[in-house]
């Protein structure tokens, strides 16, 4: 079955701490991978995406993610979080042929303490 797992549902960090949010997927075939962020009351905003090539992708606001095909993982990282990173983070996977729907994880709610 196609699915995305985000193991951390709630994360609380202090400012300047490093962040890593886990994302594992189950999907038969080639995939595109995404991380979206949703700030309170706002729309889903794309942080970064992986389509092909370099498995280490850099996104906006200092975020990066690494695609490890052998582990079916696409973990999100940021070396030093800020209070403004408080938001909900969603990992999503999409097939590259036949179906283009996104399959989302359950989300990780991040709270950064000032």
């Amino acid at each position, binding site marked *: 079955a196609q699915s*995305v797992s985000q193991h951390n549902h709630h994360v609380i960090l202090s400012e300047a701490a490093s962040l890593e949010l886990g994302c594992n997927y189950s999907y038969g075939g080639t995939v595109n991978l995404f991380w979206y962020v949703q700030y309170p009351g706002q*729309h*889903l905003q*794309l942080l970064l995406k992986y389509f092909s090539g370099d498995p280490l992708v850099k996104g906006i606001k200092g975020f990066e993610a690494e695609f490890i095909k052998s582990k079916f993982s696409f973990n999100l990282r940021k070396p030093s979080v800020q209070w403004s990173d408080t938001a909900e983070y969603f990992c999503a996977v999409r097939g590259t*042929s036949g179906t*283009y*729907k*996104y399959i*989302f994880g*359950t989300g990780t709610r991040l709270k950064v303490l000032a």
Partner: protein
Amino acid sequence: EPEVTQTPSHQVTQMGQEVILRCVPISNHLYFYWYRQILGQKVEFLVSFYNNEISEKSEIFDDQFSVERPDGSNFTLKIRSTKLEDSAMYFCASSWGTGGAYEQYFGPGTRLTVT
């Protein structure tokens, strides 16, 4: 930067009533989608739409749901007879293409509350 917009931001309706959720996709996009997120659960795909036809739908998208692009700008989701379990945040998305380098752009969502 162009954005997907959705109205209303919050809709309260009584069980059994019809609701129409509206979306204005990004103007040159060709593919349109609806997703929903029940509180505390994951965002789930409902339907995709291209060239005035449904191109894919999930098992959630039953006969109570319909989509339409009534004019050149709006994309609507209609729920004919709402149930309590339809209470959720509904997200509209659009993309210029599918697969490859084409990502979906999401709107801010409409929170539907069925009482």
